[in-house]
């Protein structure tokens, strides 16, 4: 080694030696301390001996030695300072002292910890959601290259599902993607077997390249091959992990066994991993797309039944890919100008965005709300700390007089805040864990629900929150400790002015901010609540009380002809109607009101002139039995319901809704006119009232056709109305279905109330959470106001006493005092209302038929706050009014 390296080597060795010494010091602090004491004692002894040798008496020698020596305690401290872990030691010591001080006032400590825990916990819970759902990338290979592709069919429908025909052209002509894949939604009746009842499961149909596009492999077995994905292949199926565990006992021998779906055999070729949940976690099995769907649908250019995804080539931007697809689509559109259902252009969105886009705003709003709650919690705890420091100001003053540095005192206050925050953080984490469980149970259908669990980022966030609240609370409360007027604090009485003036002002400011934030939260909660109430009470256009719905799907394999299907439905209906207590029953396909759009079709009014090329008309298409309207209480405004004579293959009649008549046949009588849909012409025999397909959406035009007369009608929703508790019919009807066909499951058994409930579940959830936050903030603000006012009364007791003794009116004095206390609350209210006007605009997308600046809500919030403030002031006011001036003065 040359000289330079040798030098460096030595330096490193020395540095290591230093660290070793420090560590030794740290762990042998006790022993090292005693050793140091011994050393110093020895030194003093020798000094005394020298002094005596110089002629002093024993006592003099001792005193001289000690005088020269100085303060052994300080000396020890100084020596210890050189042991560079002393900083660590200081922190530990501060922590110990802080903990002891807090334990001496357990009530205060408990409240502070609870309050901070609530603030920190709610933030952690919501951040877990935000992180898992919005921020965490999808669990696929290179997920940011994955995109969801849409067709833009009309101006209103720019993010439409894909058609098989146009997708094939994309696949053939596009150069921007390494993979393009088509998949679709499906549902199957899983036949009874192995002691299990038949079950209707939600499923999806994948192309053979869908899993490779995502970059996922099955956990067991294999993916579909290109041969499996043909109409002529044998049926194959991939199971979800959950279904495999639940229904097939998690037995690996399931591979290559056959199960019956819709009475057809499918061979199990694979099982997906437990975490896989695409397109959503309700899908329990996957079958090949080209096997399930009829070829003519897959080739059609205008049936938008499928979903397209793609993986962008490296170096290709989303905009480029979108432009290319649009070009291809436009070319096809221009070749089929007569078909208005052929899409014009294409749109592209990142896959993650397409899956969670609609929960982004609500989640961020809720996260902001929890941020407010934490701020309020910090203000509250800071307020409490200030109050406490006021009590201890004499102690602080004495310590300052004895030589304690201000830094030391400040450090102690910060340490207390840190301890409270840490304890609050621990409590908050427990709270967050419970809250996440509860939230998941309340919203099981949330997007990416399977991905919601805490991870490293959440942990770091939690730590950051604890530190932030500690610093924030500590800094706020130490603002009051700054006056440093030691002498005054030491004096018992201070009649010249009220003690702690600065503290009072700080507390008032904190209270103002608290109240302001509370008002913002209350306003938000009020708006969401009103929106939810409007939503819940929205008129669907039909009767919703005591109506039961359930769905059936007749498998094609066993019900091959239309006549067989119609026969089953008719016979079921007759038997259900004959149940005692059933007032009415009917069918509708595909969805009952409030349960979704269903699907639409293009049509023409025969009597109208033909539409200009490229223009199309669409209406929701529902298939019903004649008894449907009376069962659901939908009024038939004109004409009549469908006739009983509609037979399979010979449909002749149609019914339209009010919106349809208004939109497509304004100013004329629809009765007697004819509608052309597909190859058939139907006569309009009636006009009925509107029904909504979703509570928050306006009514869409509807065309009703006869279920019996439809082709390939193998599904229907049965609706039953009764006078009493209708839910009791669920079991009897299921028994009837079982009797008629043992292997036919009944699914989605819900009352109409439950249908609306699940429709409005999101709004209910958001409103509930925000109300909880606002209520807790209101409580905290009320407690804060109460505290500040009591404090003021206690501080100014002597002042009140003097005033009254000098002849002021008792009520006047008390009133003046109260007003002084309420003023910050009033100021906070005004500030809060101002902030709310600015902020609630961001909520608008979550509101239904409610304005962001709703005067009713704002007014109610103001009144509520004033009422709560008034209530919080009663006790201090009462106490102040009972003051005996003589007592007050004597207290000094």
């Amino acid at each position, binding site marked *: 080694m040359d000289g330079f390296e040798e030098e460096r080597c*030595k330096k490193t060795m*020395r540095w290591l*030696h*230093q660290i070793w*010494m*420090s560590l030794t010091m740290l762990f042998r602090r006790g022993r090292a301390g005693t*050793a*140091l004491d*011994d*050393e*110093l004692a*020895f*030194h003093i*002894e*020798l*000094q005394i*001996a020298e002094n005596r040798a110089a002629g002093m008496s024993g006592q003099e020698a001792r005193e001289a030695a000690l005088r*020269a*020596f*100085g303060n052994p305690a*300080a*000396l020890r401290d*100084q*020596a210890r*300072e*050189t*042991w*560079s872990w002393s900083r660590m030691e200081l922190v530990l010591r501060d922590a110990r002292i802080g903990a002891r001080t807090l334990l001496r006032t357990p009530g205060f400590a408990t409240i502070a910890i609870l309050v901070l825990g609530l603030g920190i916990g709610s933030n952690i819970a919501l951040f877990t959601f935000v992180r898992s759902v919005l921020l965490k990338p999808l669990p696929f290979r290179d997920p940011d290259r994955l995109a969801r592709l849409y067709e833009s069919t009309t101006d209103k429908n720019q993010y439409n599902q894909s058609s098989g025909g146009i997708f094939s052209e994309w696949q053939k002509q596009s150069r921007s993607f390494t993979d393009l894949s088509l998949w679709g939604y499906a549902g199957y009746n899983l036949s009874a077997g192995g002691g299990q009842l038949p079950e209707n499961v939600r499923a999806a149909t994948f192309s053979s390249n869908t899993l490779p596009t995502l970059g996922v492999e099955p956990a067991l077995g294999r993916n579909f091959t290109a041969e499996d994905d043909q109409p002529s292949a044998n049926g194959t199926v991939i199971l979800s992990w959950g279904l495999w565990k639940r229904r097939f006992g998690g037995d690996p021998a399931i591979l290559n066994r056959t199960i019956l779906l819709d009475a057809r055999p499918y061979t199990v070729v694979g099982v997906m991993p437990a975490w896989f949940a695409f397109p959503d976690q309700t899908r329990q099995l996957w079958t090949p797309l080209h096997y399930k769907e009829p070829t003519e649908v897959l080739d059609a250019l205008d049936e938008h039944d499928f979903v397209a995804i793609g993986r962008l080539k490296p170096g290709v931007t989303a905009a480029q890919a979108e432009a290319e697809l649009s070009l291809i689509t436009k070319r096809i559109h221009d070749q089929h100008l007569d078909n208005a259902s052929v899409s014009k252009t294409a749109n592209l969105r990142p896959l993650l965005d397409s899956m969670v886009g609609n929960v982004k705003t609500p989640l961020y709003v809720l996260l902001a709300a929890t941020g407010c709650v934490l701020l309020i919690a910090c203000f509250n705890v800071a307020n409490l700390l200030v109050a406490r420091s006021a009590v201890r100001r004499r102690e602080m003053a004495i310590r300052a007089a004895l030589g304690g540095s201000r830094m030391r005192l400040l450090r102690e206050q910060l340490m207390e805040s840190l301890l409270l925050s840490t304890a609050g953080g621990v409590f908050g984490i427990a709270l967050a864990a419970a809250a996440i469980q509860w939230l998941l149970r309340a919203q099981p259908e949330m997007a990416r629900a399977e991905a919601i669990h805490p991870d490293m980022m959440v942990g770091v966030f939690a730590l950051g929150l604890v530190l932030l609240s500690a610093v924030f609370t500590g800094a706020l409360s130490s603002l009051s400790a700054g006056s440093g007027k030691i002498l005054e604090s030491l004096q018992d009485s201070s009649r010249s002015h009220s003690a702690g003036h600065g503290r009072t002002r700080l507390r008032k400011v904190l209270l103002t901010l608290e109240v302001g934030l509370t008002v913002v939260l209350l306003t938000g909660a009020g708006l969401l609540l009103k929106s939810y109430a409007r939503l819940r009470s929205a008129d669907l256009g039909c009767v919703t009380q005591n109506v039961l719905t359930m769905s059936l799907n007749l498998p094609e394999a066993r019900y091959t002809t239309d006549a067989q299907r119609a026969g089953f439905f008719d016979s079921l209906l007759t038997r259900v109607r004959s149940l005692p207590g059933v007032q009415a029953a009917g069918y509708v396909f595909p969805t009952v009101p409030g349960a979704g759009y269903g699907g639409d079709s293009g049509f023409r009014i025969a009597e109208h002139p033909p539409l200009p090329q490229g223009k199309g008309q669409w209406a929701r298409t529902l298939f019903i039995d004649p008894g449907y309207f009376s069962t659901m209480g939908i009024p038939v405004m004109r004409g009549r319901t469908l006739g009983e004579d509609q037979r399979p293959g010979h449909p002749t009649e149609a019914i339209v809704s009010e919106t349809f008549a208004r939109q497509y046949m304004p100013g004329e009588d629809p009765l007697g006119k004819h509608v052309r849909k597909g190859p058939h012409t139907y006569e309009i025999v009636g006009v009925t009232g509107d029904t909504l397909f979703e509570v928050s959406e306006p009514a869409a035009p509807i065309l009703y056709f006869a279920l019996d007369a439809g082709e390939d009608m193998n599904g229907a929703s049965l609706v039953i109305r009764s006078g009493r508790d209708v839910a009791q019919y669920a079991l009897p009807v299921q028994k009837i279905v079982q009797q008629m066909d043992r292997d036919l499951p009944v699914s989605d058994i819900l009352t109409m109330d439950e249908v609306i409930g699940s429709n409005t579940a999101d709004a209910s959830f958001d409103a509930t959470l925000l109300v909880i936050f606002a209520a807790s903030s209101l409580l905290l603000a009320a407690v804060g106001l109460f505290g500040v006012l009591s404090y003021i009364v206690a501080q100014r007791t002597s002042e009140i006493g003097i005033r009254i003794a000098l002849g002021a009116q008792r009520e006047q004095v008390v009133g003046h005092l109260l007003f002084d206390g309420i003023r910050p609350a009033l100021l906070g209210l005004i500030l809060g209302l101002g902030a709310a006007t600015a902020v609630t605009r961001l909520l608008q997308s979550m509101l239904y038929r409610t304005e962001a600046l709703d005067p009713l809500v704002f007014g109610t919030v103001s009144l509520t706050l004033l009422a709560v403030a008034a209530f919080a002031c009663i006790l201090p006011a009462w106490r102040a009014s009972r003051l005996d001036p003589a007592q007050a003065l004597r207290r000094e």
Partner: protein
Amino acid sequence: MGKPSDLVQGTLDLLILKTLSTEAKHGWAIAKRIQQLSGEVLQVQQGSLYPALHRLEQQGWIKAKWAESETGRQAKFYSLTAAGRGQLERETESWKRLSGAINLIVQEG
């Protein structure tokens, strides 16, 4: 009397190292020796001595050992390490240079 608090921290280190270069001593003996050798000019206060001793020990220039002292009591004896000798040389050099420079200026005129 030059109070040791006037001494720059490094100077005290130098004095201690020099005192220990001949033989191992305990704290009291070091202070006495410095006092003696400087002709009673420099009196090291305990408040500076012990922190300095512990600092030097931590940096590895000196090492400590508990042994029986002349009075029969156990005392902590400090001695110079090999690295300490090197440090002593270095510090002596730099002190010579520094004091030489100051002397030049002070003697000027």
